[in-house]
């Protein structure tokens, strides 16, 4: 079974703090993705990566950065957290050329910025 794990299920941070969200997948997937989920807005893509040290902006990259130093690990960084970044953050991974481009998701991190 594909397993995607995220470092924290719940996180509370203060405005202005630097926040790291970690994601690890164990199936040697090439592609990794970071989304945020907000009520009424669905899943919005923040950043994605097709390979180590490679990153591409998604639909809402402002205020975020990412790092992919190893194939299995994809980190999302909030350089200076703000209250409008309070959200559910979901990491996903997929095979390059996989069936239907199916993505496998982690359990999510509920981030609250005070």
């Amino acid at each position: 079974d594909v397993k995607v794990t995220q470092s924290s299920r719940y996180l509370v941070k203060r405005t202005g703090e630097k926040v790291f969200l970690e994601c690890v997948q164990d199936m040697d997937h090439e592609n990794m993705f970071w989304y945020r989920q907000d009520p009424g807005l669905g899943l919005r893509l923040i950043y994605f990566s097709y390979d180590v040290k490679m990153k591409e902006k998604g639909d809402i990259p402002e205020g975020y950065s990412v790092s992919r130093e190893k194939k299995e690990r994809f980190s999302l960084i909030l350089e200076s957290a703000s209250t409008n970044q309070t959200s559910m953050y979901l990491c996903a991974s997929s095979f390059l050329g996989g069936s239907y481009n199916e993505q496998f998701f982690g359990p999510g991190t509920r981030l609250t910025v005070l």
Partner: protein
Amino acid sequence: DQQVKQNSPSLSVQEGRISILNCDYTNSMFDYFLWYKKYPAEGPTFLISISSIKDKNEDGRFTVFLNKSAKHLSLHIVPSQPGDSAVYFCAASRRFGNEKLTFGTGTRLTIIP
């Protein structure tokens, strides 16, 4: 520009009846369509998919229908069970060159016992 739309934020269905969730898209270049199911405090899990060369795909109680001319797909759940209560997202993707999924805004399905 919302390329994938789920116009019903919520839906309530009696247990045992049919649940029909709808999804519309605007990009005619999409090749693959997927449905995901999400429980609270969990990540989405893949449910069923369909290719643009087909108009129907069935997996147990779940059937997805694709109408390319109308740019519309629907997920049918028969019979509906209490465990089906969740948020359902439809997603779309192109086959080559871009493996991102574009998600809709989700429909919260509640099955009434």
